[in-house]
């Protein structure tokens, strides 16, 4: 059974100019231990999906339709207190900027201990020992000495390691990592992502890895979901999507990554920009930019459909569908 199931998720923001649909009809599963990469341009709804899963959508955003199930149990409509017990314990989260995600007034040890004592039946003393263990696991040198340091005494990369330890320390089954390396130095990104991947694998933790960096996805993910304008454009095994994307948008996205094995004259680029949420075109949201657009695209909105080894929301693959 899937660990996480997201079914037809729709997130809306009521605003003065009517309701904005930030996510629409988003469906995907994550299996235990699996890493699902989520890519797309800024504003495509990647982070919003993550926030909806951990139940921390910023008001006035709200889930208008659909379900989120964790191990078959619905979690999108739980009361705050029950959802709180799931956050951290069942679903951990990693945020983007390690400089702002740690409370500056508490030592990292205290922040780790309070997370563990909140969720696990252990004493503070035991939690402290485990905290040292976690700091070692995420690669903080001299963890025993540094556990009583404050966040400002660490560099950005080290702080993100602490954040990862905080996300993992109550041993959740799923981690929602929202751009976990974007704010870091390029030289450190690879180290941190490799550490995260290894740890997830060792602990058998599944992960939803939100990023706009296709390189990170290709390195880390098992499957990948490509998002565009609040919907999933394509989802499939990472190798398939990277090598042979089916959706014209994913093809464009993959074409913009410089390949290492051959020289290309010019990287591809996608003309135009993603529509704003206030002005999503009728039919397929990508149709004004799509090189393969045809009449149907501007009229009807495509659902995800089988497209060889992946599933794509594109009328090009409509044959064979009922």
């Amino acid at each position, binding site marked *: 059974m899937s660990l996480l199931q997201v079914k037809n998720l729709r997130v809306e923001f009521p605003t003065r100019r009517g309701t904005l649909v930030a996510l629409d009809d988003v469906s995907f599963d994550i299996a235990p231990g699996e890493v699902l990469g989520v890519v797309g341009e800024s504003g495509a709804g990647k982070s919003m999906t993550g926030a909806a899963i951990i139940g921390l959508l910023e008001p006035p955003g709200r889930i208008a339709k659909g379900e989120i199930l964790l191990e078959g149990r619905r979690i999108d409509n739980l009361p705050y207190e029950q959802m709180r017990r799931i956050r*951290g314990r069942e679903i951990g989260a990693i945020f983007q900027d390690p400089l702002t*995600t*740690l409370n*500056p*007034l508490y030592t990292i040890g205290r922040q780790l201990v309070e*997370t563990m004592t*909140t969720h696990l039946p252990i004493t503070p003393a035991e939690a402290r020992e485990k905290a040292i263990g976690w700091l070692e696991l995420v690669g903080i040198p001299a963890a025993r000495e540094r556990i009583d340091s*404050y966040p400002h005494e660490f560099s950005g990369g080290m702080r993100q390691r602490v*954040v990862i330890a905080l996300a993992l320390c109550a041993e959740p089954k799923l981690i929602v990592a929202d751009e976990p390396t974007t704010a870091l130095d390029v030289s450190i990104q690879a180290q941190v992502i490799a550490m995260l991947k290894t740890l997830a694998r060792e602990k058998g933790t599944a992960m939803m890895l939100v990023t706009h960096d296709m390189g990170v996805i290709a390195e880390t993910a098992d499957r990948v979901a490509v998002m565009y304008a609040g919907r999933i454009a394509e989802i499939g095994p990472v190798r398939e999507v990277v090598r042979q994307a089916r959706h014209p948008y994913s093809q464009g996205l993959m074409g913009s990554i410089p390949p290492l094995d051959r020289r290309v004259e010019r990287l591809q680029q996608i003309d135009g920009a993603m529509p704003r949420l206030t002005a999503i075109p009728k039919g397929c949201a990508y149709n004004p930019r799509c090189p393969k657009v045809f009449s149907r695209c501007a009229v009807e909105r495509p659902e995800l459909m089988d497209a060889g080894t992946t599933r794509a929301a594109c009328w090009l693959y409509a044959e064979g569908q009922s």
Partner: protein
Amino acid sequence: MFSFIVSRILQALPVMFVVSLISFAMFAYVGDPVAIMLGQDFTEAQREALVRDLGLDQPFFVQFATFLGNAVQGEFGLSYRLSRPVAELIAERAPATLELALTAAFIALMIGVPMGVYTGLYRNSWLSRFFLTFSLVGVSLPTFLIGILLILTFSVWLGWLPSFGRGDVTRLGWWSSGFFTWSGIKALILPAITLGLFQLTLIMRLVRSEMMEVLRTDYIKFARARGLSNRAINFGHALKNTLVPVITIAGLQLGGIIAFAIVTETVFQWPGMGLLFIQSVGAADIPVMAAYLMLIALVFVTINLIVDLLYYAVDPRLRVGRGKGH
């Protein structure tokens, strides 16, 4: 820690120096002290004697140094208006003002902080809206008008509480206290509320806005994502971070209580330093004004120092020298 305190004291010195300079300038150049002290008829010899006596024939820096030396010993000369030593006048009035200010500060903090936390946490509850409306009315009401309204209600109409004075005081050495008699406490109620109300609303609004600011930060979102209890997030993480800016501004505000006491003391004819000061301003009694100025500066510098120390205790980022590098 020690070097921190020393550096803060060193920073405070220029403030005291500038204030002394202003006080001295007032003392030496505003009005003609000799004429005021001699009154109507005097001979030229008397005048010269007094000039020599007061050291007014000395060069500026000598005069200033003498002034500073006297000031450090609490010596500010004679009041023009009352012909008594200024230090004596102030020492007589200080307990009244300090008791009033401390009571007002206590009311402001004990009520203002919890109200601010509540309105910051539950932004949309009807009680929060009520508190906010109340606070807006509070900052829009001038202190003297609050006093007048309280007197009108509780003294003139209801006749419950006295409208002026300190009631009976108990002498404890040179200190006179109104805390130990029923009439002293009754006399303290209205002035303390009047003086504290404005600070209360300010502190409440300040705590509220800081709380809301902090609740939006990433580390609070991350604390929520870690599944910490609301209590731990609101009162552990959020409140502590809120305190950092609140300490500074609340400190300054509480210092302001001493100054606002001028108004409250006038309305209630409270026999404190503020009333003395306002009477001195009206009579251009420079020695009292100069001494009061320096005293207020000293109070503020002390409060600032305490604020800095609290800051130091709360915020680890200030404790430099502990960092072990990156």
